């Protein structure tokens, strides 16, 4: 979540869904919230009932649009132009929340004089290295600042983007204050003026030309947002993978962050940016990561070249100011949680036991490495890449190159069955007898069959209790990993080999129960929470020490087991507590529901308005107080000025709410932490029917392209051959199914509700291509051709861009060759082309063709 992380300091939604009821205006963009988050959507409906304006900006008219007050149809992949247009509208009409912007954001900060904008360099920022295809961000820094290995990138070796993510890891500021600022916001190199110049060309006319949104419609949205922001009113943004799955996905979110900071909507009730996650515990899977480049709590994964030892690692990753200044305490406590008494100050707390990364080991790079025989085996858990990954056909072929494959899932999904049941086998491109992959399918227990926690979209940990025993050989993930580790440790128990010591010294002692030896999930949660010198559960991450006296499995979760109570398991009904419901589950960090909530008060600590009162300074008690847990040191006065030499959070002044950032400010301009630019700028999708009207540079220059057989791209606007794929295609989910279908296509009650892969097109496109409603059509790209049933609907009306219609083809991506309802996989059509920060695929906008009839079947000649 570097979009949110670099702007505000933490990579999580800044608010919680229940708080949407307090919004005066909600912009839902890059999300089909009613369909994909129907339960949370009740709070949008509540806001609507209270008179809020609900604006849905989307290429399609969806079930969200159906109940919104406004639907604004936009060309897929043009969101930065739209959002940048709003930034320009705010600045042009002086609609920013000036007091908030001056005090709480980096608008007054003066930037290095070497900085050059995309407006100066025709689509590039200064620091572009064409040979490497990456940026050097030296010139993006604050003026007068000691540049100290660029943040977010300083772990980088040869590859890009391994360590992006957190502004907090960013600039090294002495005493928490930027060296040069101009509170009048007039200095030509202050961030505010850079913003003005950068977005000056994002006029309503440009928005109309790029996005296909009539200018007056756009102005209505911009005006609605401005009118519903300020002291008395607040507006919220909600987004999901409609924003992230682009080659500029992180920058989409950054643009929303800029809008919300300018309008003063962060840290306040009814404001914020809600990152809607697609699975029950996706937030949890980055907090305690399944990612290769971070450790629990967003601590960077050490790099082979840069981090010889703990001291060097901490030097490079500790921020002198803000809460990331305690990196040593977080890291040492993590090492203590893992290696216990073996981790001592003398041996760097076993820092050398951590694996090191040497390059890009993200999911797509790994799949390509599998194709090239650089990966022997893979364990696939909780995902179905044979359906869910971009260019899923290539992924299936990659599976066939493995020596072994383990798939743990509820049912035998396509990823487990690729070797005998796949389009490639049907076409004869793969032959079962030729596939050498040894496939192990291990049945998994469902959430009803095991204890554990989910960390949901709003950073809320909620415990689930086992209701029934798992059937047959089905086992929980916890069981699998615990016993796998136990058995491996037993196998190397007698080893004298140095390389086995990390395994042998690992703290791997969890109580088990029952016939199958299920480990105690609560014991794991307690370890994550952490313990103090006396062995008792810690209450807060502020108690963590860097001397080895505390252990903590994930510092941001510290406090979830305070007083030895499983706090995620708390279920006090809403009727028995305040609307914030602090006793329902537990939210990281410190059970805060709205982050950066010190910003709900003015610089003096008083609520900006009675109507939007949330957290404030109580002068009598000399403490911060309010509806929520204050996101601030509770007794730090609003007029606190850090003394010389102050470190970490003590270096953050009493007026600065963004306590994870080195300067305590929300970052309109991001000097480090985002690899493709300090300011979001409009680039066309990798495949687009349109030219970029702003720059000669068509698409994000830093995007990751893998130009190889099986993953060829289409020419874009104007280039020879672009007319072969004249339409825009986009993927999405339906309420009735779940992502790659493993949990829905196999369930009769869900399968019958959406029983066929279908393709949504407008009546105009149907007429142009002779497509018959209810009949079959085939969508094609350089990667694949897939078929589906045709739904002709005005919900897919074309947008007009520069006077001509752009047709968009809608593709739900749930189907595969298995399950009760079977069909083609939309992801087969898309290229692997990635956002450089997070390696996420661009499947929300690409080009295609569509023809009537079924796709060719049977073996290829």
């Amino acid at each position, binding site marked *: 979540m570097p979009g949110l992380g670099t702007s505000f300091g933490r990579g999580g939604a800044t608010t919680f869904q229940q708080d949407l009821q307090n919004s005066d205006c909600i912009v839902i963009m890059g999300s089909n919230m*009613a*369909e994909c988050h*129907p*339960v949370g*959507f*009740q709070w949008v*409906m509540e806001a609507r*009932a209270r008179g809020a*304006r609900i604006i849905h900006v989307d290429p399609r*008219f969806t*079930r*969200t*649009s*159906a*109940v*919104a*007050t*406004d*639907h604004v*149809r936009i060309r897929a992949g043009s969101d930065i132009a739209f959002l940048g247009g709003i930034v320009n509208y705010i600045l042009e009409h002086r609609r920013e929340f000036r007091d908030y912007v001056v005090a709480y954001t980096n608008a007054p900060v003066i930037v290095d004089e070497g900085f050059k904008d995309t407006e100066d360099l025709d689509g590039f920022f200064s620091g572009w290295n064409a040979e490497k295809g990456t940026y050097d961000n030296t010139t993006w820094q604050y003026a007068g600042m000691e540049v100290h290995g660029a943040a977010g990138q300083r772990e980088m070796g040869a590859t890009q983007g391994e360590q992006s993510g957190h502004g907090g890891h960013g600039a090294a500021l002495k005493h928490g204050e930027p060296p040069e600022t101009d509170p009048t916001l007039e200095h030509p190199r202050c961030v505010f003026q850079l913003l003005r110049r950068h977005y000056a060309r994002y006029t309503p006319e440009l928005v109309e030309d790029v996005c296909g949104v009539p200018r007056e*419609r756009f102005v*209505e949205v911009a005006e*609605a947002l401005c009118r519903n922001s300020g002291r008395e009113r607040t507006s919220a943004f909600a987004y999901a993978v409609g924003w992230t799955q682009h080659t500029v996905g992180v920058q989409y979110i950054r643009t929303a962050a800029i809008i919300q900071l300018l309008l003063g909507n962060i840290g306040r009730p009814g404001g914020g940016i809600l990152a809607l996650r697609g699975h029950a515990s996706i937030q949890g899977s980055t907090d305690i990561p399944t990612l290769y480049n971070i450790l629990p709590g967003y601590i960077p994964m050490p790099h082979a070249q840069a981090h010889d030892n703990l001291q060097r690692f901490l030097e490079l990753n500790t921020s002198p100011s803000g809460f990331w200044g305690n990196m040593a305490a977080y890291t040492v406590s993590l090492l203590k949680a893992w290696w216990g008494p073996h981790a001592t100050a003398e041996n760097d707390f076993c820092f050398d036991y951590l694996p090191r990364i040497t390059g890009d080991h993200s999911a797509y790079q790994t799949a390509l490495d599998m194709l090239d025989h650089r990966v022997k085996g893979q364990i696939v858990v909780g995902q179905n890449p044979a359906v869910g990954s971009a260019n899923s056909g290539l992924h299936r072929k990659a599976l066939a190159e493995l020596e072994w494959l383990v798939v743990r899932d509820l049912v035998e999904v396509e990823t487990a069955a690729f070797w005998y049941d796949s389009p490639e086998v049907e076409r004869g491109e793969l032959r079962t007898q030729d596939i050498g992959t040894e496939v192990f399918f291990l049945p998994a227990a469902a959430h009803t069959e095991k204890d554990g926690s989910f960390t949901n979209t709003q950073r809320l940990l909620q415990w689930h209790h086992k209701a029934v025993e798992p059937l047959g050989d089905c086992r929980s993930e916890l069981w699998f990993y615990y016993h796998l580790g136990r058995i491996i440790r037993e196998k190397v128990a007698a080893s004298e080999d140095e390389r086995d010591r990390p395994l042998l010294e690992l703290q791997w002692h969890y109580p088990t129960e029952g016939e199958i030896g299920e480990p105690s999930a609560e014991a794991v949660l307690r370890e994550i929470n952490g313990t103090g010198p006396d062995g008792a559960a810690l209450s807060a991450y502020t108690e963590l020490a860097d001397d080895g006296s505390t252990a903590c499995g994930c510092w941001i979760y510290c406090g979830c087991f305070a007083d030895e109570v499983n706090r995620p398991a708390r279920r006090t009904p809403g009727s028995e507590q305040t609307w914030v419901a602090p006793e329902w589950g537990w939210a990281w960090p410190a059970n805060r529901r709205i982050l950066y909530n010190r910003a709900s008060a003015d610089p003096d600590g008083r609520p900006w308005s009675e109507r939007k009162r949330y957290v404030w300074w109580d002068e009598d008690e000399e403490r911060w107080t309010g509806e929520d847990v204050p996101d601030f040191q509770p007794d730090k006065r609003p007029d606190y000025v850090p003394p010389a030499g102050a470190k970490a959070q003590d270096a953050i002044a009493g007026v600065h709410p963004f306590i994870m950032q080195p300067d305590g400010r929300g970052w309109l301009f991001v000097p480090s932490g985002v690899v493709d630019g300090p300011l979001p700028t409009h680039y066309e999708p990798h495949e687009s029917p349109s030219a970029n009207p702003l720059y000669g540079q068509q698409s994000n220059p830093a995007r990751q392209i893998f130009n190889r057989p099986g993953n060829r791209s289409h020419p874009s606007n104007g280039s020879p051959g672009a007319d072969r794929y004249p339409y825009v295609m986009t993927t999405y989910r*339906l*309420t*009735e199914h779940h992502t790659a279908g493993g949990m829905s296509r196999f369930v*009769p*009650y*869900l*399968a*019958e*509700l*959406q*029983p*066929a892969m*279908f393709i949504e097109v407008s009546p105009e496109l149907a007429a142009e291509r002779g497509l018959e*409603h*209810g009949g079959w059509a085939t969508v094609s790209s350089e990667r694949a051709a897939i078929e589906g*049933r*045709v*739904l002709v*609907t*005005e*919900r897919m*009306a074309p947008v007009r861009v520069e006077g001509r219609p752009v047709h968009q083809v809608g593709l739900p991506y749930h189907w595969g060759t298995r399950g*009760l*309802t079977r069909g083609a996989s939309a992801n087969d059509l898309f290229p692997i082309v990635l956002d450089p920060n997070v390696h996420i695929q661009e499947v929300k906008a690409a080009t295609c063709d569509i023809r009537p009839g079924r796709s060719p079947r049977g073996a290829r000649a």
Partner: protein
Amino acid sequence: MSEDALRTEAWPQTYAEEAQPRMGFFTDTSVCIGCKACEVACKEWNQVPEDGLLFTADSYDNTGSLGANSWRHVAFIEQDRPLRVGADAAAHGGGDDGFRWLMSSDVCKHCTHSACLDVCPTGAIIRTELGTVIVQEDVCNGCGYCVPACPFGVLDRREIEDDGRVFKCTLCYDRTREGMTPACAQACPTESIQYGPLDELRVRAAGRLDRVVEDGFAGARLYGHDPADGVGGFGAFFLLLDEPAVYGLPPEPVATTRDLPQMWRAAALAAGALALTAALSLFGGRR
């Protein structure tokens, strides 16, 4: 047959002290998001079978209609007209490209005058102490008389595994008799489906209608709330945003047994007249 026995308003007297306030559904389609959680929750709780993977191409509706195997049915209607009209809509910018997508979760109406109950020869269909109408599956013999009797086409015989009996919404009798909320209402994330005492729901619905009309939904109306209608009012009534027919609902439903008492009276009269004539002719004949 007495008229009282035919007329279902005999309830709640027949339950004496066991009778409870009449319970029902208010389905407010103005907040329905078409998630179909009601359909799934209903099937899960009541163990209603899956009945075919049929792609209908009728918007997002692959359920089609209510029936023995679908006790909730969400309709999806795509219309070329704006969601709101009038001054308020203008203030909201008109909002929606002159297009709207209506969604509505249909269900058995649990009529005050239930023709299905009237015609059931086995007594399988009864009115419960909550005023709801249910088919007792252990009594139903599958005769099917109720199927054409329903003015809404709700009742239907289950043709799976030669079952042949009639199944429909029970308003989750096994839950509601214990004071619980029916599965669909429990699952509905936006309170589009509300369960409660019918009197309270009618008051709530009236207030809700005022609000929705005020908000610019010009075609909004209540459907089935009026005890004076052809079925004596629904136990499960609706707030719709357009004509009932748009949703596939009969505009003026009438209990198919409504005229039976009169018909019986007419028949009795005719029979009497016939008998009298015969008697007279006999008598006259003697004379």
